[in-house]
């Protein structure tokens, strides 16, 4: 395997890491206003703090997966980085804005007791989680479908081209899938009332997620060149993804939330792997002329740079996995809704 392929895989891994970790973060943020509802206003605030604390120690570290994926794309495939970020300009700008207000909101919301202050930041957490959950689907939908890229590797489509039905369907799918994933996560990390509410939400969201993923599967055959590339039988990866989401419904009904979480994670990971399989060896598919597509060869850095980066990644990715895994171990306990035991 050449280094270009190695880096294509590594970048896929980084995005998968990001989806798997920040995916439930986004879901938790989206569910924040809904699952915290209570007649007692004091209870609402405690519920919100519990919900935020389930991801409190982790969300920032999870988000670094995106920064690392972006940095790695810059280092390994500068042309991809340049075309993607200058091309999907406003979409990515919206993504950045969402991440900015969301990140600040996590730290700021509990540092003042004024209800308007808190509801402002809670709203920022909700919108700041909702927008990325949709946009990530839209971006990957367009990456798979192909976009107008000219002979000099520049995107010439404009913002509204990105909002085509296929990409929007992909955006709806990531939105619901992440929300489902977040609901299951919450049912694993909370107790009592919140836990059962999260569980009920997960069961409802699961139905929508399955329907959307089926629609996306069919649409992928219609809108992309997956048929020409992979044939009628797309192979084991997408099938595993679909089976996993079906299994997750089974586990949800049996109250086996841990298994439901794992199978939803498998579905997310394998769906994303499918995206990268459709793209490979292209990284930006040109809908104008196949010859104008960016590939892992014409978009890559030099052999030497890829080698340097490979050495760095081999040493440090395992270390990161180790200590990030440890941080989940430290905070493995469920969070109870007792105000006196909550970290603010």
């Amino acid at each position, binding site marked *: 395997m050449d280094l270009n392929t190695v880096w294509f895989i590594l970048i896929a891994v980084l995005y998968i890491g990001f989806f798997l970790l920040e995916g439930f973060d986004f879901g938790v943020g989206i569910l924040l206003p809904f699952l915290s509802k209570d007649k007692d206003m004091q209870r609402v605030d405690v519920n919100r703090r519990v919900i935020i*604390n389930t991801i*409190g*120690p*982790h*969300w*920032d*570290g999870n*988000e*670094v997966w995106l*920064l*690392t994926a*972006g*940095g*790695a794309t*810059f*280092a*390994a495939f*500068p*042309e991809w*980085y*340049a075309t993607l*970020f*200058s091309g999907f*300009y*406003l979409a*990515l*700008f919206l993504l*950045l*804005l969402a*991440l*900015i*207000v969301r*990140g*600040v909101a996590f*730290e*700021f919301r*509990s*540092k*003042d*007791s004024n209800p308007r202050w808190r509801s402002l930041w809670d709203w920022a957490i909700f919108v700041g989680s909702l927008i990325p959950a949709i946009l990530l689907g839209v971006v990957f939908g367009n990456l798979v479908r192909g976009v107008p890229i000219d002979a000099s590797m*520049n*995107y*010439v489509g404009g913002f509204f081209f990105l909002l085509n039905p296929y990409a929007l369907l992909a955006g709806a799918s990531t939105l619901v899938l992440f929300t489902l994933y977040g609901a299951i996560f919450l049912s694993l990390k909370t107790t009592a009332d919140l836990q059962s509410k999260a569980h009920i939400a997960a069961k409802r969201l699961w139905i929508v997620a399955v329907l959307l993923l089926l629609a996306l599967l069919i649409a992928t055959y219609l809108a992309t060149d997956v048929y020409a590339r992979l044939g009628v039988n797309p192979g084991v990866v997408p099938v595993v993804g679909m089976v996993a989401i079906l299994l997750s419904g089974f586990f949800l009904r049996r109250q086996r939330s841990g298994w439901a979480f794992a199978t939803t994670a498998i579905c997310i990971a394998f769906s994303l792997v499918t995206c990268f399989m459709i793209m490979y060896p292209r990284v930006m598919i040109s809908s104008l002329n196949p010859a104008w597509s960016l590939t892992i060869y014409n978009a890559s*850095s*030099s052999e*030497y*740079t890829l080698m*340097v*980066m490979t050495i760095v*990644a081999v040493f*440090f*990715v395992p270390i*990161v996995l180790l200590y*990030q895994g440890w*941080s989940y171990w*430290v*905070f493995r306990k469920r969070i109870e809704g007792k*105000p006196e035991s909550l*970290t*603010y």
Partner: protein
Amino acid sequence: MDPLILARLQFAATTVYHFFFVPLTLGLSILVALMETFYVRSGQEVYLRMTKFWGKLFVINFAMGVVTGIVQEFQFGMNWSEYSRFVGDIFGVPLAIEALLAFFLESTFLGIWIFGWDKLSKGLHAGAIWLVAIGSNISAFWILMANSFMQEPVGYVLRNGRVEMDSFSDLLLNPNLFVQFPHTVLSGFTTAAFFVMGISAYHLIRKNHPDLFRRSFQIAAMLGAISIVLVILNGHSQAQHMVESQPMKMSAAEALWNTESPASFSLLTIGDLSQRREVFSIRLPRLLCLLSYNQLECEIKGLYDLQGEYQAVYGPGEYIPPVAVIYWSFRIMVGVGFALLALALYALFLVMGDMLQTRQRGLRLYVFAIALPYLGTTFGWILTEVGRFPWVVYGLMTVEKGVSPLIGAGEVGFTLLVYTLIYAALIVADIYLLNKYARVIPELSVTGTLTEAGEDMPSLVRAQG
């Protein structure tokens, strides 16, 4: 408006804004880590309260640094796609390494630190904040490696119409990096030291928790004095390096239009920018030679001669950067540096003489001095970055060639406007919280466990005055 101007404005605005938060993160992480280490070693509760108090301010500031940093990571691709294509082979590497080595470390362990008070042993908990401090400071190393390549390209070959990496070790050993990194990090320590001294002075004047704030002031005064001395010494070597590597920047910083031998140092120069000449100037003879080469005889080339030399090498064009901006940025930075040196030495004098309780008027100075390092670091960066004009990569690519070709003024203008509005709203919230938590002191509850200075806690104590 020209999209190039707007893209430059956007880069300047978002970067300067981002750097409001970075220096404090660099230094305050170290100070909080020191305080918690003292707590672990001595077991004295006052150090725990110091850790909690300053830690809270650290976290508020850190959040702003993180989110504004996300924009920096992606702005190159968005507004500067041609630049990204040209330098990606080299420039992307430190960015990726920074994320992998530093961002993961600092964000993961800060999460552990904030939420892990009752989940980890004391030593392990202190270890977490040390890892945050190390992460923040190595993050500075990698991003300055990227910036150093823009200032002084090394370790590359021009191939396939772009710069390709030729030697990773040359990039790591870039001479510019070794003057710029200490300067930046030590300025960060200085910023944090004056932040802590200023807020401590505020409380000492009001006689709030004198023990807590006397100790805070002492630690900060030590760190501040050591750091500012090193910043100035290192700034001196940095300037000497600049004379060699970017003579145009140095001559612009001195508003030296005509070559001088021996060269004088400008105390105050008023110029006529439209005619590009000096109108009035007070100059100290030979001092620039002393500063640049440690000797009394030397020749420093003026802007006109350098312009001629650059044209001979790079072809026709404008190579003189905006002289007034650079001249005054340089003077503000250096002026701030020496003011901080005086204040740091006076702080040491107060600490050594045990006069923190008595010298009220002297202490008041430090409350206002909180702003000074921010002024210094901001203008330091303006000098560094504007002084590189017209180059985005020195000698290899001009700024105008780096911009995204198909991004129009509407898009850059719109995003610039929205960034400005959001950033303005965020700074209001940030200053509100910093101001609030700078006045609130964490109290020990009856049971001996510490409650947070959050509004939810009943044992909240608000400082008097």
